[in-house]
C-alpha cells in the first residue's frame, strides 16, 4: 500500500530513533570491558569491573534492598489497592470520585514534592529514616497504579453473573472468587507489575525518605556516579540490561495461543517465568549479601564520613577487633551533612565535620563531649592541631583531628605553560571552559575573598557581594562545579585548572604526572576535619572506641597511605614506608605557605544564610 520511498523513510526513521535509544547503552556495554578507566582510550579487554562489582558488598546489599522493597511494596500495594478498588465500586459515585482523585495525587504530583512531604511526615512522627520509611513511601506511590489498573476491569466485570451466582446459592465469598476474581485478575497482575517496576526504578522519593545504611540501587548509583568515574557502574548497567532483556523475552515469547487465553494459561505463561527469575535473583543475592551482615555481637556504630575518606580495610579491621558492626554512610560537603544532624531525624554515632562546621555544631549544642579517658591513642595527635582547635573547641572536649590539608590550584602542565602564583588565573579568559570550581559554598567564596585580599571569614556584605560578582563573572569560564569528581576529571585531562584539596591533588599526581599544585600567594584555606559525636548518638560508647581506633598509629598510617591526605598523627611519618608520600611537598607544604593560610570559622546563622543566598544567585545566574 505504501509507496516505496515512504517505506524506506519509515525504516530509516525507526532505525535512527532506535540508534538514539541504544547508543548510550551500547557505549556502556563496551566500556564495561575496557581495562582503562578512561572513556577515550581502549586499554584492552577485561572482566575486572565485573569481578569488582560482585565483590562490592555495598552494591550487593543495595541490590538486595531494591528487590526486597520492590517485592514487599508491590505485594502490599496490590492487596490494599485491589481491596480498595472493590470497595470503591460499592461506594456512591460522589465519594468514589473524590477517593479516586486522592489516589491520583501521587501519580500526578511531582516526585520531589511527594518525597519531601513523606520525609516531613516521618520526621514529625519521630520515625528514624530507614528501610521502613522507604517501604511505606514505595507502598504509597504504588497503590494508585494498582487501583487504576483494577478499577476498569471491575467496571467491565459481569455484574449480572455475580448476582446470578448469589441467586443460585453461592455465598458472597464463593461468588467473588469464582466470578469476579477471574475477571479482574489481569488488571491485578498488570497493577502488580507496574508497582514493581515503579518501585525498582524510583530514585527521587527514595532519596528523600532513606536513612543511613539503607541504599537502593538507585541511591547507591547516584552517590557512586557523583564521586567520579566508576567502570563498575558500566558493568552493572550491562548486567541489568541483560536481566531486563531476559524478563521481557520471557513475558512476550512464552507460548501463547489466542484460543486458550484462560486464566491458568496466563499465569503459567507469564507470571511463573517472571516469578522464577525474580526468585533466583533474590536467592542468589541473599546468599552473597549475607557475608557482611554477620558481625555485630557488641552492637553497632553508625559512622557518617566524607566520601572516600577511609581505607575500607580499616572498617573491617575495626569490626573484627571490637565486634562492633559499622554502618557506614558518606556525604559530599559539610552543608549536606549538617541538616541531617540538626534535624535529629537520623541518629549518627560519629561524624567527621570540618572545623567550621564542628564549631557551628558545638555552638548549637548538637554534640556531646567525647570521653578522653578511653582514648589513650589521642596522644599521637600533634599538639599544634589541638591548639588550633582550642579556638573553637575550648579544652578540646568535642573535636578530634583526623585529616588536614590546604586548598590550592591543580593544573595540567601540558595545558598551562606559563608559571603562575595567583588565584587570578581562575579568571583568565584564556582558560575558558577549562576550569573546574569547587561546588561548595565556603570553598568557592573562600578563595575568591582571599584573591580580593579579604579574610575568608568575611561577613561584610560589600566584600561578599564583590566576591559574588567575581564568581558570576567567572561562571562562563567554568566547565563544571564539582566536588569528588574533580580528581578523575583531572586524571582524564578533562580540564586545565581546578580548585582542589591537597590530598586529592597528591592522588591525582600519583596517577597523572602531568599536574602541578600551587598554593597561591594571596593565601588560602587550611582545613582540619575531625571526629565528633552527635548528642542524639545511640552508641556513644562505641563511637568513643571508633575515635580512639582512628588515632592508632597503624590505623592512621593505613588511612594515610590509602587516602593520601595529610595526617595530624605524629607517628605516621615514622611508620610509613612510602617515601614519596612522606616527602610530598603537596601534603606537607612549607611553613611560609601555611602561614598565609587561614582556618574557616563558623559565622553564625545570619551570615551563613547570606552565603547560601549569594551562592544560589551565582548558581542560577
Amino acid at each position: 500500500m505504501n509507496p516505496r520511498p515512504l517505506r524506506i523513510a519509515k525504516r530509516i526513521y525507526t532505525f535512527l530513533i532506535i540508534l538514539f535509544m541504544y547508543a548510550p547503552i551500547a557505549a556502556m556495554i563496551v566500556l564495561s570491558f575496557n581495562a582503562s578507566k578512561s572513556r577515550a582510550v581502549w586499554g584492552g579487554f577485561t572482566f575486572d569491573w565485573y569481578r569488582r562489582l560482585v565483590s562490592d558488598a555495598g552494591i550487593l546489599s543495595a541490590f538486595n534492598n531494591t528487590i526486597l522493597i520492590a517485592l514487599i511494596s508491590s505485594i502490599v500495594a496490590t492487596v490494599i489497592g485491589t481491596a480498595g478498588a472493590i470497595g470503591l465500586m460499592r461506594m456512591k459515585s460522589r465519594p468514589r470520585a473524590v477517593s479516586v482523585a486522592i489516589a491520583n495525587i501521587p501519580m500526578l504530583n511531582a516526585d520531589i514534592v511527594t518525597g519531601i512531604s513523606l520525609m516531613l511526615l516521618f520526621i514529625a512522627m519521630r520515625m528514624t529514616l530507614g528501610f521502613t520509611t522507604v517501604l511505606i513511601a514505595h507502598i504509597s506511590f504504588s497503590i494508585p497504579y494498582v487501583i487504576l489498573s483494577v478499577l476498569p476491569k471491575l467496571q467491565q466485570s459481569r455484574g449480572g453473573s455475580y448476582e446470578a451466582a448469589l441467586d443460585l446459592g453461592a455465598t458472597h465469598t464463593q461468588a467473588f472468587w469464582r466470578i469476579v476474581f477471574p475477571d479482574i485478575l489481569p488488571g491485578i497482575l498488570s497493577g502488580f507489575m507496574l508497582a514493581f517496576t515503579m518501585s525498582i526504578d524510583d530514585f527521587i522519593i527514595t532519596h528523600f525518605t532513606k536513612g543511613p545504611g539503607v541504599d537502593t540501587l538507585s541511591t547507591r548509583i547516584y552517590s557512586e556516579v557523583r564521586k567520579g568515574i566508576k567502570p563498575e557502574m558500566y558493568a552493572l548497567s550491562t548486567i541489568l540490561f541483560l536481566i531486563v532483556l531476559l524478563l521481557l523475552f520471557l513475558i512476550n515469547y512464552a507460548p501463547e495461543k489466542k484460543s486458550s487465553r484462560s486464566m491458568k494459561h496466563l499465569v503459567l505463561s507469564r507470571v511463573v517465568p517472571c516469578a522464577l527469575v525474580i526468585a533466583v535473583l533474590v536467592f542468589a543475592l541473599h546468599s552473597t549479601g549475607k557475608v557482611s551482615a554477620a558481625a555485630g555481637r557488641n552492637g553497632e556504630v553508625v559512622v557518617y564520613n566524607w566520601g572516600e575518606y577511609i581505607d575500607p580495610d580499616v572498617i573491617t579491621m575495626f569490626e573484627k577487633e571490637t565486634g562492633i558492626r559499622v554502618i557506614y554512610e558518606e556525604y559530599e560537603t559539610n552543608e549536606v551533612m549538617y541538616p541531617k544532624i540538626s534535624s535529629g531525624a537520623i541518629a549518627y554515632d560519629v561524624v567527621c565535620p570540618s572545623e567550621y562546621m564542628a564549631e557551628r555544631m558545638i555552638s548549637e549544642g548538637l554534640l556531646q563531649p567525647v570521653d578522653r579517658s578511653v582514648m589513650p591513642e589521642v596522644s599521637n595527635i600533634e599538639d599544634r592541631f589541638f591548639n588550633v582547635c582550642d579556638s573553637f573547641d575550648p579544652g578540646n572536649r568535642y573535636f578530634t583531628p583526623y585529616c588536614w590539608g590546604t586548598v590550592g590550584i591543580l593544573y595540567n602542565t601540558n595545558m598551562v605553560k606559563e608559571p603562575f602564583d595567583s588565584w587570578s588565573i581562575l579568571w583568565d579568559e584564556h582558560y575558558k571552559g577549562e576550569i573546574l570550581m569547587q561546588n561548595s559554598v565556603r570553598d568557592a567564596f573562600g578563595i575568591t575573598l582571599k584573591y580580593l585580599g579579604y579574610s575568608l571569614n568575611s561577613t561584610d556584605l560589600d566584600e561578599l557581594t564583590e566576591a559574588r560578582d567575581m564568581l558570576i563573572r567567572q561562571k562562563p569560564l567554568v566547565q563544571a562545579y564539582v566536588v569528588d569528581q574533580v580528581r578523575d576529571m583531572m586524571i582524564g585531562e578533562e580540564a586545565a585548572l581546578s580548585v582542589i584539596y591537597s590530598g586529592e591533588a597528591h592522588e591525582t599526581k600519583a596517577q597523572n604526572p602531568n599536574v602541578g599544585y600551587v598554593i597561591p600567594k594571596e593565601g588560602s584555606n587550611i582545613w582540619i576535619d575531625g571526629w565528633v559525636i552527635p548528642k542524639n548518638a545511640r552508641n556513644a560508647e562505641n563511637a568513643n572506641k571508633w575515635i580512639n581506633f582512628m588515632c592508632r598509629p597503624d590505623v592512621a598510617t593505613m588511612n594515610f597511605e590509602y587516602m593520601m591526605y595529610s595526617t595530624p598523627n605524629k607517628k605516621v611519618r615514622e611508620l610509613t614506608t612510602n617515601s614519596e608520600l612522606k616527602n610530598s611537598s603537596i601534603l606537607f607544604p612549607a611553613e611560609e605557605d601555611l602561614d598565609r593560610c587561614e582556618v574557616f570559622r563558623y559565622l553564625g546563622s545570619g551570615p551563613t544564610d547570606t552565603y547560601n543566598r549569594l551562592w544560589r544567585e551565582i548558581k542560577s545566574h
Partner: protein
Amino acid sequence: MRRRWLAAPFLLWSAAFIIIPIFMIIWFALTDQSGSFTWSNILEMGLADNIKALALALLLSIAATLICLVIAYPIAMILAGKKNGRNTMIAMLFILPMWMNFLLRTMAWQTLLEKNGVINTILRVLHLPAVTIINTPGAVILGMVYNFLPFMILPLYTVLSKIDREITYSARDLGAGPFQTFVKITLPLSKPGMISGITMVFVPALTTFVITDLLGGGKVQLIGNTIEQEFIQGSSWHVGSGLSLILMIFVFISMVLVAKYDPQSTGTAIGGRP
C-alpha cells in the same frame, strides 16, 4: 451491597501517607523556625534567582516535551501501522531502555558527551572539531528527551493503534488527501494519547534535579535543584516547603489546563514514574 469496608485500608493509607504529608508541606511552608505564621517562605519564590530557576525549568521542560512529541508521533504512527506481532516486538524495543535504571541511563550520556567522552573521541578520530554539549542547557534537554521519550511513545501508540482504520479509509474514499486525513481524523482522535504523553513528560522534566546534576555540571540550576538543595544541603526546610508548595500548585494548574482539553479524561491511565 456490603464490602464497602474493603476500601477502608486504602482510605486510611491515603489519609496517612498522601493527605497528611501534603498538609505537612503546607504547614512548613506557612511557618518559620519558631513555628509562627509567615508568608515569607512563599514570597521567596519572588526572588530573582528562584524566578530564574523556575523560568529555566519551564523553558527546558517545554522544549523537551515538544521535542519528545515531534519525535514520538511518527514512531507511534509507524508502530500502529504495522501488523500485529511485529509491532509489539518493536514497541518492546522502545520500552526496554525504560526498564533500566534511570540514573544509569543518564550516566551513559555523561560518558558520551564529556570533553574526552565517546562522541568527541570518535570526532577526533575522524579529524572533526570537538563539540561541547556537556554542562549546557542543551545537554539537560537531551537528557530529558532521552529519559522520557518512551513515556510519550507508549500512550500515543496505544491510542493510535485503537483508531478504527475504516474511518481513515472512508475519509480517503470521500476525497481527503493524506495530509487532510491526518489533520482532520488522526490528529484529533489521538488527542488523549498526546495529552497523557505530554503530562508524563512535562511534570518529571519540570521538577527534575537529577538530570541537571549529572549533565549540567552544577551550572544549570532548575527549580528542582533549588528545592533539593534547600532540603538536602540545606538552608531551610521552611523555604523548601514554600517552594514545593508553589511547584505543586503549578503542576496541578497545568493538569487542570490539560484536563480541559481532554473531555474523556482518559488522562494518565498508563502510569509512568521516571
